[in-house]
């Protein structure tokens, strides 16, 4: 379990995170949602150790990140998989090179073992016959799949995704969402997704944390979000007419 307690982060005069506390559980897909500028990316980068919070703690299964030495922090990071918004694939490496990179860096496996593992995870993300292509030759959806394959190749305990379906068409976005949820359940890992995509919220949000201006304004599940009276959440989630109607139908059905 990841336990976040009273997290504060500022950049100069800008107080971005204002005392966020929450938990993320094993085997569940958790979503952090909020408007642009609400502090989602800063929050996830604090969890990853890319930003150092001024106050508060992040507890990874009993290991408090800020209390670890820099070597221990690096070792903990080897248990983390991350899918960046822009995929962050290494341009100079092929798909195979990108996915094999963590294995090359941190394992003593033979070449054949590494190739088997790479082919296994690439198959798992439904990416076939792309091993020798470079990132520039791939579509946005394929790049996201490679990024997911690279994130899970080391069997991570924690998977973080920063807007994994931004820039993708709705069909591919749902495929990526479902893939992440399947992997979370299959490997029993803690997955935290940073998103402002409402389809993702409804589809895979087993836990949702809603951030507003650096505060945690609400948290619950994708079932509870239909029923909530929290004005900040409803005005954000049901901002489109379509979602307003969906919510109306759901509430009528329930009553």
């Amino acid at each position, binding site marked *: 379990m990841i336990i976040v307690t009273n997290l504060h982060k500022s950049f100069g005069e800008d107080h971005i995170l204002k005392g966020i506390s929450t938990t993320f559980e094993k085997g569940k897909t958790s979503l952090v949602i909020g408007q642009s500028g609400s502090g989602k990316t800063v929050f996830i*980068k604090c969890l*990853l*150790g*890319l930003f150092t919070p001024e106050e508060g703690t992040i507890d990874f299964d009993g290991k408090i990140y800020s209390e670890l030495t820099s*070597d221990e922090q*690096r*070792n*903990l*990071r*080897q248990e*983390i998989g*991350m899918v*960046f*918004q*822009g995929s*962050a*694939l*290494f*341009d100079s490496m092929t798909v195979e090179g990108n996915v094999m*990179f*963590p294995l*090359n*860096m*941190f394992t003593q496996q033979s070449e054949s073992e590494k190739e088997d593992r790479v082919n296994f995870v690439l198959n798992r993300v439904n990416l076939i016959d792309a091993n020798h292509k470079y990132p520039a030759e791939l579509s946005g959806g394929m790049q996201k799949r490679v990024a997911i394959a690279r994130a899970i190749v080391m069997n991570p305990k924690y998977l*973080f995704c920063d807007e994994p379906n931004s820039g993708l068409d709705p069909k591919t976005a749902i495929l990526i969402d479902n893939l992440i949820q399947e992997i979370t359940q299959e490997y029993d890992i803690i997955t935290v997704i940073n998103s402002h995509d409402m389809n993702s919220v409804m589809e895979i949000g087993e836990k949702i944390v809603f951030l507003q201006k650096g505060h945690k304004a609400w948290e619950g599940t994708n079932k509870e979000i239909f029923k909530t009276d929290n004005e900040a959440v409803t005005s954000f989630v049901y901002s489109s007419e379509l979602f307003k109607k969906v919510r109306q139908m759901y509430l009528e059905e329930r009553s």
Partner: protein
Amino acid sequence: MTYLSAIGSYSIMVKEVFKKPTKWPIMKSLILKEIDELIFNSLGIIVFISLFIGGVVTIQTALNLDNPLIPVSLIGFATRQSVVLEFAPTFTSIIMAGKVGSYITSSIGTMRVTEQIDALEVMGVNSLNYLVFPKIIAMLLYPFAVAIAMYMGILGGWMAGVWGDFTSSGDFIEGLQLDFDPYHVTYSFIKTLVFAFVIATVPSYHGYFMKGGALDVGKASTTAFVWTSVVIIILNFILTQLLLG
């Protein structure tokens, strides 16, 4: 205050570069790639510039020697001293600050903008060691490039002097050998090694800590070139005082 802060960040960066090294087989391939990119790919421009600079120094010296009491062999002597002491190590380093420095800043800066450096850090890789250390090691071969620059500069001087009818080949070679002090070459190589470290690390600093988007990568490259040149020129003065003064 900003400059002090930048010097502090640069020093911390250099310290981090030598921490938690990357596995040797991976590092070896990175170093070989950087040697190819930073040294071998620069030899063409180094040869070209040195040849012509040597030629220009010879012609200018010859044109200024109108006193019949001064021996013609002084043309070779002046060419050798100018090329070995200053043009090969310092002038070539300024050129390298532009060519190699902008490559380093733009490649690392692009990795920063596209979150590839964040990806390395999240994986638990010491990104500074992975990205900057191979460049520092590759640049240890830079004195060889400068040795070639010295040779080509003197060759260029000989070609301009002899073919331009400013001096005879014998007089030029006599001047080259006149009052030769091997320590001048040592001084030149010491300077070159210091400049090599500057060329590898200052542009890396500007690329690694850059903020913004694609446009800012270009701005960072320009800033890196300016600061690398400034540092080289200041260090050139200090090292000359220390080693020859």
